[in-house]
Every structure is written in C-alpha cells, then in structure tokens.
C-alpha cells in the first residue's frame, strides 16, 4: 500500500497542473474576492475574511476531484489498474494507497490557504484541535467523493464536468460565495443538503465563535457521513471499474 502512496505522491509533486488548481488559483480567488468585496454592503473586514478564506478553502478542496479523476481514468485506460490488480495487493490497500496521497495534498492545501489568510489578512484561527479535526474531515469527504467519481465515470471529460457541477454548484448553493444570512430562507434550507455548507459552518464556529471540538460535532458528523457514503460508493463501483480496465 505504501508503495502506491509513495509513487503517487512523487507523481503529484511533478504535476504542475495540480499545483495550479490546488494552491495558485485559490490564492488568486481569495485575493480577488476580498479586494472586490472590501467596503461593500458595510461588511466588516473580519466578517469578510472569515467568510472568503474558509469559504474558498472549502470550495477548492473539492477541486482535488479533477486530479483524482484524471489519475484513475489514466491508470484504467493504460492498463495499470489491471496490472496492479494482478499482484497480491488486497483491493482495500490499493484503494487506500491511491486515496491517501490526495488526502495529503488536500490537507497541505488547507494548511497553505489558512496560513495565507493568517499572514495576509489576520485570519483568526481558533482552537487548533477543532481546526485540525475539521480540516481532516474536509479532506476525507472531498477525496472520498473524488474516489467515487473516479471509479464511476466513464470518461475524463465526464468526470471533470461533474466535478465542476459538484464543486461550483455546491459552493454556490452551500453558501460559500456569500453569507447565507443575506439569502432567502428556502436557500438557507437547501444549503444544508451540501457538504460545503457544513464545512464552512464548522470553520465559522471555530474561527468566529471560538468553538471547541465539542461545538463542531454536528458539522463533523455530517461531513463524515457524506464521506463514508462516497467511500462506500467507490468500494461498490470498483469491480465495474476493474472490468473496464485495459490489460
């Protein structure tokens, strides 16, 4: 399993596209939107920063799905999946081995973006334990959905398109782009069906209300449930994915 994780991490380090999606683009968005919304609607600077930095951190964490789809479809179509399946490595170790590097990338992404918020915009961080647990949970849900998507879609284009729908649609409806308080009641209800909402809700509880681990139990529970559903879907989709693999 660690052999797969190590090789995948080595490949990720050389993937310039991943660096762009994961670190450069989110930072550009954070800077751009904070600049645009500064002084608009009488929003306090701290309110703006605690909305946009964690909001875009949550949104871009879901973009890892693109890299996962590309990696898995490439491995499927090159025959690598069937090749690895012919070794004595158990299925769950293969899936976890492939999954872990992407989780590590998302965790690094969250650390980089929150650190950027702290250094440039004085973002308050709150309780480190609660922040770490929530970030791990966010990395878990985004990559488990990425794994499920990678094993379910037939083509790379289909995967990328669906990722955009999930990442951008979830961000819009989940209240990542603007505070939900200014949206109609029905939109606030709809938002609760998206993991992005619970991700931001958790961060806000920690960053704004100085919440502890006990205060974020609900967002954590919801995110883990969404993540487990993704993981289960991926596990069920694997035999079909393997059948589609060239060899």
């Amino acid at each position, binding site marked *: 399993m*660690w*052999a*797969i994780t190590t*090789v995948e991490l*080595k*490949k990720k380090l*050389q993937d310039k596209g991943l660096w762009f999606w994961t670190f450069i683009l989110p930072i550009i968005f954070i800077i751009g939107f904070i600049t645009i919304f500064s002084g608009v609607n009488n929003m306090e600077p701290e309110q703006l920063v605690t909305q946009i930095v964690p909001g875009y951190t949550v949104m871009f964490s879901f973009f890892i799905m693109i890299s996962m789809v590309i990696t898995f479809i490439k491995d499927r179509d*090159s*025959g*690598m999946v*069937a*090749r*690895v*399946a*012919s*070794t*004595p*490595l*158990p299925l769950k170790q293969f899936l976890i081995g492939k999954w872990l590097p992407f989780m590590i990338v998302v965790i690094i992404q969250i650390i980089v973006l929150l650190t950027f918020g702290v250094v440039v915009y004085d973002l308050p961080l709150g309780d480190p334990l609660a922040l770490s647990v929530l970030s791990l949970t966010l990395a878990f849900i985004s990559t488990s959905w990425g794994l499920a998507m990678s094993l379910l879609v037939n083509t790379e284009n289909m995967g990328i398109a669906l990722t955009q729908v999930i990442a951008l649609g979830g961000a819009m409806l989940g209240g990542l782009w603007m505070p939900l308080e200014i949206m109609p009641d029905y939109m606030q209800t709809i938002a609760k069906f998206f993991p992005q909402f619970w991700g931001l809700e958790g961060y806000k509880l920690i960053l704004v209300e100085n919440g502890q681990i006990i205060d974020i139990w609900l967002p954590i529970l919801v995110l883990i449930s969404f993540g487990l559903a993704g993981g289960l879907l991926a596990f069920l989709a694997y*035999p079909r994915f*393997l*059948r589609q*693999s*060239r*060899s």
Partner: protein
Amino acid sequence: MIDVQGVSKTYGSNQALDNLQFQINEGNCYGLVGPNGAGKSTFMKILVGVLQRFDGDIQVFNHSVKENRLGVKSYIGYVPQDICLEELLTAKDNLIYFGKLYGLSGEHLRKRIKTVLEQIGLSEKANQKLTEFSGGMKRRLNIGCAILHEPSLIVLDEPTVGIDPQSRHSIFSLIQELKEAGSTVVYSSHYMEEVEELCDSVGLIDKGKLVEHGTMKQVLNKHRSASIFVSAEGISEEELSSHGVTIKKKTGFTVNCDDPLLTMENMIEQFRNKGIHPERLELSQSRLEDIFFNLTGTQLRDNG
C-alpha cells in the same frame, strides 16, 4: 499444473469464453493463439485474478483462483499487452514499486532488482527515467517487473508487439532462460512463428471456444498437409487451381494437394509447355499459421 476447469464468461449477451477445459503441465511453455476478440485476453485476466466473476475454476499449482485469489497471485507474474509502467519514474524505481507490490523488501529486493536488470539488459539504464526509453526497452522492463518475485507461472500477453528485432531476440532469450529455470509460461501472440518456436504446447481459441489443443508436435502432425509454393511470372491462380486448392500469397501461390511429388511433376510439365520459368517451386509443410487460418478462416475480426 494449471488445470482449467470449464471456464465460461459472459459480458451481457456476449459469450466471451465458453466452457474452456485444458491442462498446462508444470515447466511447459503454452502458446495461446486466436483472432482478435477470440477470448484470449479475457482468459488471461481470469487466470491472473483480475476478472473475478466467471463460471468454472482454474487450479494453479493446486490452488483455486476463485477460492485463494491473493495466494494464487503471488505465484504469477503477469506481463500485460500494454506497457504498464510509471513513466515519470526511473527503471529502478519502477522495479522497486512492483517489487513492493509483490511483497519484496530490503536486501532481497535490492538483489532481485540487480539480477533482473542484468536479465533484461538494462543495468546501465537503471537510473534513467522511462521518458528516455525506447519501446523495446520499456517492453523488457515490463517483463522485468513481472519476474522480480520469481513467479512459478509467467503469463505474457503479446509481449513483443511493436518492437525492434534485437529487443524481440532479447525477450525470446529471456523466456527460454525462464523456461530452463523451470517456470511455466503462458504466452499469447499474434505472431505464429513466435509461438511455434517458443512453445511446447498450444491452444487455439476462437469465439470463446478452444478449437484445438495439444503439444505443438501433436497439433502440427494432426493438421499436417503438404503444399507446393510457386512463384513464377505469367502464371495465374486459375491455371494452378487444376492441381489443387490454390491460395494467393504475397510473393506467389500455395497449392494444397494430396500427392505433392506427382503434382510437382505435372506442374513442371505445364510450365515447360507454356515456356514459363518459375522463380521458386518448393515443397512445404503446414505451419501453425496455416492451421490457424484453416481453423478460424481468413475473415477479418475487428471486434476485439
């Protein structure tokens, strides 16, 4: 022994494999031939444990592929048709990667990598990335990754596709070496002369069924028929067909007949009368390729 026990596999309404039953003796090199879409790759995927749902079973050295999939996999080294290597890594890193997947580690893995690099002739290229490798070098490394763990059964699916003669020769020598070391080899190829040269036994699959199977000698003898090869300017297929079934080849015609000596005498007489001077007039025996065409026909198979 590899014991294939009534293996069938369907994809929807398509019967990919239909009740395959045969045995491969330990230490044997078994050639698997068949047209595109015949079911060779499906069979190989089942044998190496990649395809998990099928009817029947395969016993690999007395271990059931169905009941002890992971155990069986450690006996097998699979060389897929596609080059399945990590392009961004070096040859050595690829070997380390696959070695670890097969459970090798430490000093044993290091020693095996050194030996395998020598066997596949890539010792000096060990630290080069695959982006700098030729197709033949990648094919050899593809095999190297499958033999690191010293498998008792090596399954090769079209290992010589698209490579230069030197690499092909090197791969042949390596397979001979593995055979001599006692490994059992299952070898699939579209190049019949390769199968005829390398393999002790052969199985011919068409439309998911085993249409012929036996030792190479048995199969060749069973279908042996004499023919005459003619290459001459000014001779047509119609003129030759009076001597027997005539097949147009690239550089001449093959005439199948019951009594080749008599037919040849008649042909020489015919050529003399017409003032034709043949460039080649040869007696030939059926090769595996002729048997393959006789059993499967010459119609194109583009569905697989």
